[in-house]
């Protein structure tokens, strides 16, 4: 064999970084959208919550119409569904099947893989937001313009925060445990975590702590923005704190195999 053979073939090159991440984001988005259970969690359950909150008196007496208070919380719930539960479970099983290891040996790499996953979360969230917004507008939602401009980046922050938390769970325990933990927390955060119900409506012992949970912080920040057009700085700081903590813990303890 002539040793020059490899030089004749020429060196293989990676695709540009942006294309690799977009490619992975697109692939993960399609995978998430093709998953039926995922769609129930991402779209059907939030819509059911939206309708339920607009026809029951749970949110009465808070100084705004039911739908105006319900919609920001339901958007926050969408972010939690996709970023925490959906991406957490998907990543947990990718880890079990060695997909994370294989993809990290391609030019995509570990950082590109995580970036692709975040991109997919945001892409699915855009679709969820569009659907929830259309339904909410039909139900009489009237968000202030300033609130919309404020709410969009807050929702992205919430999604990134919950993605970091989801990856932390997925990277540290078995996928079956990830499935159980992220589903259980979705229910607990959804019902009692201040995400769709404001902390003032949470029964006794919980109401004091929910504002400090990622769910309560995102729900509170979204409602402040989309009901009153205001920035709830404390909630944003709490959310940023959770993001930094979860990301640091995930970087420290995430196991790729």
């Amino acid at each position, binding site marked *: *064999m*002539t*040793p*020059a*053979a*490899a*030089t*004749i*073939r*020429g*060196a*293989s*090159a*990676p*695709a540009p*970084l942006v*294309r*690799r991440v977009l*490619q992975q984001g697109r*692939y993960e988005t399609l*995978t998430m959208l*093709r*998953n039926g259970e995922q769609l129930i969690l991402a779209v059907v359950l939030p819509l059911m919550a939206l309708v339920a909150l607009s026809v029951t008196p749970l949110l009465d007496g808070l100084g705004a119409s039911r739908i105006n208070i319900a919609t920001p919380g339901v958007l926050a719930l969408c972010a939690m569904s996709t970023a925490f539960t959906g991406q957490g479970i998907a990543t947990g*099983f*990718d880890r079990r*099947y*060695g*997909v994370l*290891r*294989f*993809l*990290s*040996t*391609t*030019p*995509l*790499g570990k950082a*590109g893989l995580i970036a692709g996953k975040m991109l997919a979360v945001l892409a699915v969230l855009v679709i969820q937001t569009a659907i929830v917004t259309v339904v909410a507008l039909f139900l009489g939602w009237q968000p202030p313009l300033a609130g919309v401009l404020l709410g969009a980046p807050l929702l992205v922050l919430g999604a990134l925060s919950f993605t970091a938390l989801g990856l932390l769970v997925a990277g540290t325990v078995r996928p079956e445990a990830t499935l159980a933990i992220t589903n259980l927390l979705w229910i607990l955060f959804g019902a009692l975590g201040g995400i769709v119900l404001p902390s003032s409506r949470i029964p006794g012992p919980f109401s004091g702590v929910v504002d400090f949970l990622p769910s309560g912080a995102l729900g509170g920040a979204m409602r402040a923005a989309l009901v009153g057009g205001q920035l709830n700085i404390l909630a944003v700081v709490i959310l940023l704190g959770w993001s930094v903590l979860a990301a640091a813990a995930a970087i420290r303890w995430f196991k*790729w*195999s």
Partner: protein
Amino acid sequence: MPDSSAPALVIDGLIRDVGPIAALDGRMKRIVSGVNLTARFGQVTALLGANGAGKTTTIECAQGLQRRDGGTITLLGEDPDRPSAALRARVGVMLQDGGLPPSARPLALLHHVAGMYGSPRSVDELADRLGITSFADTTIRRLSGGQKQRVALAASLVGNPEVLFLDEPSAGLDPQARLMVFELIRELRDEGLAIILTTHLLDDAQKLADYVYIVDDGATVASGTVPELLSQATSAEAQRTITFEAPAGLDPGAALRAGLSVLETRPGSYAVSGPLEQGDLLALAQWWARLGIMPTSLHLASRSLEDVFLALSGTEMR
């Protein structure tokens, strides 16, 4: 451009510890303790050893999938500990467990992986070559082990790599697929790729490898071309080997006296080596009779690569 007269991969004195292990009172366990290896372009380099010898750990350190605790590794002139995208683009990896998402379909997955590279191979050509086209749209979870193995091989090749790592490439393949895969590996070798494969099957090494490293208990214990290793066997202690073919997954060791080495060299193919006497042949025949087995072939020989392997890797082979 790579300087292809230089080796593609050099591993020198690799050390890898895992743990802490609870059974060792929380101490670390050294699972690789001095593997040395050089792989060249246009050659198939095999790491041959029993399961648990440290082969996978060794190549995963070279792929940047595991951190090493000592020694040096140079892959295409770089340290692969934190491989750059440029380095990853030049190296193809087929993992032992495949690493394929069960819900994906082979052809779509290969196109996806191809998108990570600047100058990928043609996915359709590759799929055709490896017989993937016939199950291109079946989800991976429904494929047989051998079919998955071929998809994983295609995924490792789609980026048009210069260096190819194959971890147990023949695992799960039926004889026909095995021929197809071996043929492709030889062809890639002739194209100039440096191919590094692990195997616990002597037959694979004998059929494919230009250069063999025998790994035992975390260290390379012998190396050379197959003829070189065979000539080493003449200087190894005198011993005989009985090889026979019978149903896979049996444990002939249970029927034989201690001091003999027993190895299933490929599924259903057994080798018993050591200072064999007539009584051992009788014990084996009685054991077949007890199990109601008639071996499909039986061979008595005095030297083979198996002897080298067994002589060097000790009695732990069972």
